[in-house]
């Protein structure tokens, strides 16, 4: 950990339009790293003190995942516009925050997602088809078509269950890590959320319990500038979101969230701290939501094109690609092949998913309890007797 930086040591601050420097208060705490961590320098070199030392193959793999994620995002928006899926919420522009952090997790570590982290799930090995089935809520969907698109869960991949209420996963991730600690298992939880979620009850409870019980938890706050139409500057008057760590006695670190290697490095360090018994870390990953909040949102109503354009020029994928190209690890041809392959893979999965039947009617009554009580059996039987049961293959 670096020594106490002076208040001036945060020159990156102004770069981020949604940075909360507004009150002019600059706290200085040895708990917090204010200067956003950066690894990939403008000149193409790498900060040697922070270089996570990934192999070339691993870097290319992560880049490919970023690109695939991007292509999926774009294509799913189209499918939604065509009425073929109901909804999508993506990670356009935030790929580095998600892929970089998930890549840093060890196999045994658990991920507690918000709702933009399907890239992390794919990186952890969930087949694309499984993800696409979830987008269609069909009978093959592992959550049985019960939740909206992008509300997947991935136990086999040490990956939690998406739900819509903001922040609830945070406290749960803390409890999970705490349980592992009690059982002396070397396991850290990574929990994702947006900067808007720092206003939730859950952030407060999760961070406070994490501080008191020193749980091995990495709080990954994707500060993407917006909570739907509410700018980060109106979410909190704190100087930075990382500063909130001080209130809970945990570490806070600001990270250039569009620098994949920086996100990787900071996350890995936080995981190691947790694993060593040093408790939780709050990472503020400075990034930007380039698209609308979801397919239900039109961001033109509340933000300026200029702001978006500024951030487009910092595209995390382009940045990582440039960096790989400089090292001779990537080129146009590979890019084209990757994009074509990714689009084709997705198309294939969509084809399969669209053909799959919906979940069976009776599945609606299962899994409320482990065993179905009488009242649900009655409700199920009543529905199965009804006129619509036929349409569902009864």
């Amino acid at each position, binding site marked *: 950990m670096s020594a106490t930086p002076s208040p001036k040591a945060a020159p990156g601050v102004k770069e981020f339009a949604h940075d909360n420097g507004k009150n002019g208060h600059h706290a200085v705490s040895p708990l917090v790293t204010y200067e956003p961590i950066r690894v990939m320098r403008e000149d193409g070199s790498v900060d040697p003190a922070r270089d996570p030392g990934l192999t070339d193959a691993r870097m290319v793999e992560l880049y490919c995942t970023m690109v695939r994620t991007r292509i999926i995002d774009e294509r799913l928006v189209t499918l939604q516009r065509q009425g073929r899926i109901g909804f999508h919420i993506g990670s356009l522009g935030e790929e580095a925050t998600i892929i970089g952090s998930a890549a840093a997790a060890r196999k045994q570590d658990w991920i507690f997602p918000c709702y933009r982290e399907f890239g992390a799930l794919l990186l952890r090995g969930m087949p694309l088809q499984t993800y696409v089935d979830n987008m269609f*809520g069909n009978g093959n969907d592992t959550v049985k078509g019960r939740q909206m698109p992008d509300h997947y869960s991935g136990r086999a991949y040490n990956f939690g269950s998406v739900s819509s209420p903001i922040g609830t996963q945070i406290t749960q991730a803390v409890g999970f890590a705490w349980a592992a600690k009690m059982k002396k298992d070397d396991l850290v939880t990574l929990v994702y959320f947006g900067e808007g979620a720092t206003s939730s009850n859950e952030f407060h409870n999760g961070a406070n319990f994490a501080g008191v019980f020193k749980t091995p938890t990495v709080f990954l706050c994707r500060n993407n500038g917006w909570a739907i*139409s*509410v700018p980060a500057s109106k979410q909190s008057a704190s100087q930075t979101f990382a500063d909130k760590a001080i209130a809970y006695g945990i570490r806070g670190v600001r990270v250039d969230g569009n620098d994949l290697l920086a996100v990787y490095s900071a996350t890995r360090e936080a995981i190691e701290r947790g694993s060593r018994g040093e408790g939780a870390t709050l990472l503020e990953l400075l990034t930007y939501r380039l698209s609308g909040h979801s397919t*239900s949102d039109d961001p033109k109503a509340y933000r300026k094109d200029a702001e978006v354009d500024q951030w487009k020029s910092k595209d995390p994928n382009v940045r990582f690609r440039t960096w790989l190209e400089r090292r001779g690890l990537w080129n146009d041809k590979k890019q084209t092949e990757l994009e074509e392959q990714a689009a084709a893979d997705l198309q294939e999965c969509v084809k399969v998913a669209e053909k799959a039947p919906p979940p069976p009617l009776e599945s609606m009554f299962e899994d409320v309890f482990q065993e179905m009580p009488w009242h649900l059996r009655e409700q199920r039987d009543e529905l199965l007797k009804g006129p619509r049961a036929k349409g569902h293959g009864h």
Partner: protein
Amino acid sequence: MPQMNMVQAINDALRLEMRKNDKVVVLGEDVGKVGGVFRVTAGLYDEFGDDRVIDTPLSEGGIIGTAIGMALYGLVPVPEIQFSDFIFPAYDQIVSELAKFRYRSGGEFVSKLVIRTPVGGGIRGGHYHSQSPESQFIHVAGLKVVCPSNPYDAKGLLLASIRDPDPVLFFEPKRIYRAAKGDVPEGDYTVPLGKAQVIKPGKHVTIIAWGAMLYEALDAASQAMEKGIDAEVIDLRTLWPLDIDTIIESVKKTGRVVVVHEAPKSCGFGSEIVALINEKAFLHLEAPPVRVTGFDTPFPYTLEMEYLPLAHRILPAVVQTAQY
């Protein structure tokens, strides 16, 4: 008279009352510049400014807690909860504080505000954008609960709710936000709280519904008519306090009741209605009152049209009840 949909009618009511009464303020997530995720508050920010149409941090507890404080000061806040599924982080402030202020202070303090929030399914919202939590509020003494089914009532009931001396939960059935259209008078009028409306008179069965399900009830009623069953359809409009007189009058006539709601059946508002009918019209009952409701499961995504108590599920209940 202008034609409006529900969104427009509610917007119209808010604008009207905000012009009239500078104590009325709107606050919530995304209610400002963007006018709410359903655009119900569209244009209010431009007209009234960010001091009266306030985008808040992402915290329902903060929204309701501060709104209660504003109300104690004498303002009339009309907070929006983006989806009623997200009201639960504020549940403690609502049930422990808002509902009890007048009572617990011996009448010294009143926390008068109106919580607006979209309810119900049918927009492919799954678990967390579809629920209908009315019974979780009706059970708590001290709250009034309203749910309009059409633009005329929406405007009139919202104006009445804002002017009512007690806290009101104003549930807006999002499935019909734009689908329900109708004539809405310009200017001021109210629809009184606590008064149901007989939408279709009938003599064989009473169907009780509200919000988006009213249309399903009417659909079922007209299908039943083809089978010679003349159903009376009541739109509750105000759920609590309940217009028991209109219900009992109808039951005394028909002797048969079907209650329809989207919320899960068990401990839903339907159970209260059935229990009250037992108390007040037992000897008039010719058949067991029936509930056609959401199932006792979380609200599903793909099968939402199977989950909802649509006409195809109401109709058999009406027929069976009529023929009991």
